[in-house]
């Protein structure tokens, strides 16, 4: 099964190239890349639900924010070091995801999306109102990083290493028997149930795994921002992760990471030229949703072109109605890593 290792090798080359940039770029560019790397983990973790599980959650910012607040509040109230906060983040995020998942996964489709959105709004309100604990709307600011991480370059290498490590774990999860089961639930939950799969239990596992890694991404956010504030928990923050996944390609493993990069660069550079950059983002999203549901990763995926596009594709799309269809991956692609072999 050498095909399984190809995306892993691609990932390693990519990580090496990004590490090389760490030695050549200036401080402000490094901060931008830093943000992109953190958001890439957030987007890929969110996409475990959106792309692999077919569960469109607008609540992943709850866990992202919990990750950031774990570090910030631990530092402020418990005199934790950054490392203690980083260790606590996935535990607290995972526990919160278990609770939210137990409730939200009782609902389906739109109602699931609305419930997760409501949890995001609830978390935002709590963070904003508990002034004595969270500093309210101001959030928590301060020198919460050890000296070794406070430099842009070391900070960048650290965020990059943690992101790469976490992405490798998430990728492994998508390639496991669980990953295939999750995709089969996305495709047809009743059929999966008839085969003996406890659908609710598996969706809950996916929700918790996603929550854990969203929290780690939140803890990484502190490395380049040295702060935590209520907007991190807001549903719009959840929405950005979904945007990144859709723009980058939710049916590929690294698509959402590409989306995070495009989003971050867009934010950084478009904002210098136009105040309407969110409008451009929105327009891009509309175009992609309409014409290339498999996202930028699908557009660049030349390997898919080698397979003839079947005549039935259009009608399947119309009949299925739920989402667009990605091009069939290479014949022997490993489960869950469609498109990765293209890299």
């Amino acid at each position, binding site marked *: 099964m050498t095909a399984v290792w190809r995306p892993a090798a691609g990932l390693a080359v990519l990580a090496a190239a990004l590490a090389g940039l760490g030695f050549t770029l200036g401080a402000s560019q490094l901060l931008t890349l830093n943000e992109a790397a953190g958001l890439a983990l957030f987007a890929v973790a969110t996409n475990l639900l959106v792309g692999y599980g077919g569960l469109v959650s607008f609540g992943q910012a709850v866990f992202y924010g919990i990750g950031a607040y774990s570090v910030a509040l631990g530092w402020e109230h418990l005199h934790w070091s950054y490392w203690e906060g980083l260790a606590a983040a996935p535990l607290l995020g995972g526990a919160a995801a278990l609770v939210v998942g137990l409730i939200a996964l009782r609902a389906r489709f739109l109602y699931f999306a609305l419930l997760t959105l409501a949890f995001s709004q609830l978390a935002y309100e709590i963070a904003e109102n508990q002034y004595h604990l969270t500093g309210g709307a101001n959030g928590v600011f301060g020198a919460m990083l050890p000296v070794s991480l406070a430099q842009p370059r070391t900070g960048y290498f650290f965020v990059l290493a943690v992101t790469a490590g976490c992405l490798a774990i998430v990728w492994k999860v998508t390639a*496991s028997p669980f990953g295939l089961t999750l995709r089969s639930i996305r495709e047809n939950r*009743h*059929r999966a149930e008839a085969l*003996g799969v406890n659908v609710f239990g598996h969706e809950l596992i996916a929700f918790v795994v996603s929550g854990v890694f969203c929290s780690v991404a939140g803890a990484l956010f502190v490395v380049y921002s040295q702060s935590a504030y209520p907007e991190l928990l807001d549903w719009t923050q959840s929405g950005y992760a979904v945007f990144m996944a859709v723009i980058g390609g939710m049916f590929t493993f690294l698509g959402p990471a590409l989306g995070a990069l495009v989003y971050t660069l867009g934010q950084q550079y478009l904002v210098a030229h136009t105040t309407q950059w969110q409008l451009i983002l929105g327009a891009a999203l509309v175009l992609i949703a309409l014409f290339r549901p498999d996202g930028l990763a699908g557009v660049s995926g030349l390997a898919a072109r080698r397979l003839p596009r*079947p005549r039935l594709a259009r009608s399947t799309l119309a009949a299925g109605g739920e989402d667009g269809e990605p091009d069939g991956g290479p014949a022997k692609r490993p489960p869950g890593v469609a498109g990765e072999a293209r890299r």
Partner: protein
Amino acid sequence: MKRDGDAGALLHAHGLVRRFGSFCAVDGVTLHVAPGSIHAVIGPNGAGKTTLFRLLTGIIRPTAGRLMLAGEDITGKAPHVLARRGLAQSFQQTTIFPRLTALESVQAAIVARSRRAGDLASWFHRTVTAEARQVLDQVGLGRQADTRADRLSHGDQRALDVALALATRPRLLLLDEPTAGMSAAETGKTIRLIAGLVRSQGLTVLFSEHDMDVVFGISEHITVLHQGRVIAAGTAAQIRANDEVNAVYLGSDDA
């Protein structure tokens, strides 16, 4: 009503009732499926066949009555629990995993059967892939292993549907109108497939069917439903000679 030996029955439904509001879709159905047999449930449209199958597979719960699988009470158990007890089903509308390949679909079924669906940490074992290919060969899909399920022909999708059920290594296979919407050639192929599986694997099959040629061609036992009730049960020959059954199928109510 004739009883065909409930002591050794693999599946035994006793007095199953299912009401939807004031409408009684299944009204006291008792059914015995002998191990290793091919058993058909027939009846005109609206006789309650599909509701009965949904009851037997746990998709809906009975209003009253009991359901036993190999002597174990399975009344009201969830579908995934029934699946683990050896009950597999294929649906009236083909239900597959559209964007998984045929091979991936069967792998998913094998993973579910071997209780490894929650396994996040390990790789696919070679044996899962080998077994999946073997199951695809059995249903004649060996060459389409890497084709996405939604790009298979209608008949091949039905075959994949059956392959998914087979991959769970069931004791009892429930097929709700397995040849619905098929061409004559596809119907023949499917029937040969089912009969072959019963012989080679010692499977027990309970199926519902519209096509009388299919029913009398392969079934050993037949249960006839009409307006939610069993009006006849017995061997193919007995059913063929039954006046009430003939009356129902001719559409008159004076039987």
